[in-house]
């Protein structure tokens, strides 16, 4: 098992094919899976997309972002508007229920448009803010995340603070698991490409990367935009899985939850991050009845993790934050 999983990691295309195969099998032959388990799997897959895409920004490129949930919100609202208002108005003679062929056929372009609008938001946010570093970047991304949330709260055509309900339940195991696999594959393939090495170069030493001719701002913005795209797709999947979205569901805490997944999985380790995302999803289910304790547990996990093994969890970031040969010196 271990060897075969290693082979899959070494050969991403094989892993991609296998993963898509699993997604198809789950969808076609998964009738025996009860609705609750299905929902947990959907959440796990969506969290995998979110965490692995944030890993590109935080883990591979070394930029701290606190607004991943806001990009998710942009994708969720865009795609929900498309399936809820635009498509039924444009094509009124088709049947628009969750499992009708029309909604399934149009779901892929809807998700991609949702992702693209989120990517545009990523470009708007990332362009100016990625000139900043560290603490300041964290605060500016937090600020942008909150601004997007406040804008949504004041946008009455999407329900304002009440949110949107009755969204088409178009998300199924095929789309969610398929996109999760596709995201992990894309991220691994991306950072292994010649172009993608630039991300890690920026993370490891921004000044040296710039000296080597890498346009560091461009690389950082690219990572941000790609991360935002996948977050937007995840948002679309989420909206069409839970059938209800509201601005509060995409607040700073949601972003923090994704950050916890990335840190627990290991920055710059997409497979580890995906596993952490699945584990946190399960943890959320176990702690569902104890929702107050959930955030306390998260907080303790993070604090203890940071204190007990900070060097290991932050190794990819270490050299970026403290340029020079002595990462332990202040």
């Amino acid at each position, binding site marked *: 098992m271990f060897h075969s999983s290693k082979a899959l990691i070494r050969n991403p295309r094989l892993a991609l094919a296998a993963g898509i195969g699993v997604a198809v099998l789950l969808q076609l032959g998964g009738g025996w899976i009860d609705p609750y388990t299905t929902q947990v799997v959907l959440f796990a897959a969506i969290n995998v997309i979110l965490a692995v895409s944030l890993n590109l920004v935080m883990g591979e490129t070394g930029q701290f972002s606190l607004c991943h949930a806001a990009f998710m919100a942009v994708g969720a609202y865009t795609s929900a508007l498309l399936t809820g208002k635009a498509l039924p108005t444009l094509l009124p003679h088709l049947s628009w229920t969750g499992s009708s062929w029309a909604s399934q056929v149009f779901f892929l372009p809807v998700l991609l448009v949702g992702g693209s609008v989120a990517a545009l938001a990523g470009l708007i946010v990332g362009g100016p803010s990625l000139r900043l570093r560290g603490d300041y970047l964290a605060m500016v991304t937090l600020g942008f995340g909150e*601004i997007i949330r406040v804008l949504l*709260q004041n946008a009455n055509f999407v329900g304002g603070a009440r949110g949107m309900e009755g969204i088409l339940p178009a998300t199924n195991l095929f789309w969610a698991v398929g996109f999760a696999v596709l995201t992990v594959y894309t991220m691994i393939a991306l950072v292994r490409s010649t172009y993608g090495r630039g991300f890690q170069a920026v993370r490891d030493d921004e000044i040296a990367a710039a000296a080597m001719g890498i346009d560091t701002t461009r690389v950082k913005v690219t990572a941000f935009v790609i991360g935002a795209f996948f977050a937007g797709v995840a948002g679309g999947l989420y909206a069409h899985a839970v059938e209800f979205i509201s601005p509060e569901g995409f607040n700073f805490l949601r972003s923090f939850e994704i950050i916890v997944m990335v840190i627990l999985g290991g920055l710059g380790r997409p497979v580890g991050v995906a596993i952490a995302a699945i584990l946190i999803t399960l943890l959320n289910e176990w702690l569902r009845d104890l929702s*107050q304790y959930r955030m306390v547990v998260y*907080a*303790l996990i993070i604090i203890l993790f*940071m*204190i007990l093994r900070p060097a290991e969890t932050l190794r990819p970031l270490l050299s970026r934050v403290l340029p020079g040969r002595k990462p332990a010196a*202040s």
Partner: protein
Amino acid sequence: MHEFLQQVINGLSLGAIYALIALGYSMVYGVLKFINFAHGDVLMIGAFAGFYAVPMIHGIFPDPWTTTAAVLIWSMAVCAVLGVVIERLAYRPLRNQPKLAVLITSIGVSLLLSYGGQILFGVNQKAFPDLLPPIRVSLGSSVTISGNHLLVMAVTLLLLVALRETIQRTRFGLALRALSQNRDAAALMGVNSNAVISLTFAVGSALAGAAGVLYAMNIHSIEPLMGTLPGIKAFVAAVLGGIGSMPGAAVGGLLLGLTECLLGGSDLSSYRDAIAFGILILILLVRPSGLFGSSAAEKV
């Protein structure tokens, strides 16, 4: 015009509270160069400490002004201890780690305090008692200042002057300034950096505690997540003034409070919470060192 003047007074009062909180951010940033995310939640603990102490303190001091003063001092003491404990347990083990590790830890501490607070104090809002009699001082025809607003401004002024004197005239203040310039050099000159950092957290958190009580007296209700928003806005105020600069934090707080109240009275009121972030983003893009800050060149 009266409306405008009234909003100016409200803004100054709100800004004074922001200034108190912003000073804590700035002091910690000055010595440790990191943003203490949990600062806003220390404020919340201060408000709750005051809330639970009011009945007892009121039994000892029947006079409303004495009660208020005692509640303020009690909350400041509780928060000072809390700040020292947080620094000792969560931040000191990471003293020589990357700033980002400490930043993430402080987000963790923030969540621990606010959600731990939900478990301890309950999720629901609690009505913060009116400590002062409802006095109003009228200025001119229709502009009035309430007792609460007067108290906020007086307490803030007092604490600001006390802090300034402490930093300029005491050995602790000297050590603090030395640390914020260069920690290693200060340590070589015999400054006990751990002790000074602990004391910095104590002072900064005490200011947050005072701000918590004052904030609670103005909004009349408290709940465990109340600290986040003023915390973030005060951070914006600190950055606006130039983080690390004490007068900057005070001026930044007042400016932010004024902006918020003046715009809050207009049609933009539902976007009020986004205004602070808009300001933050603008400053960081145009003048990252803030109004009073100095920018340091990065050494390679």
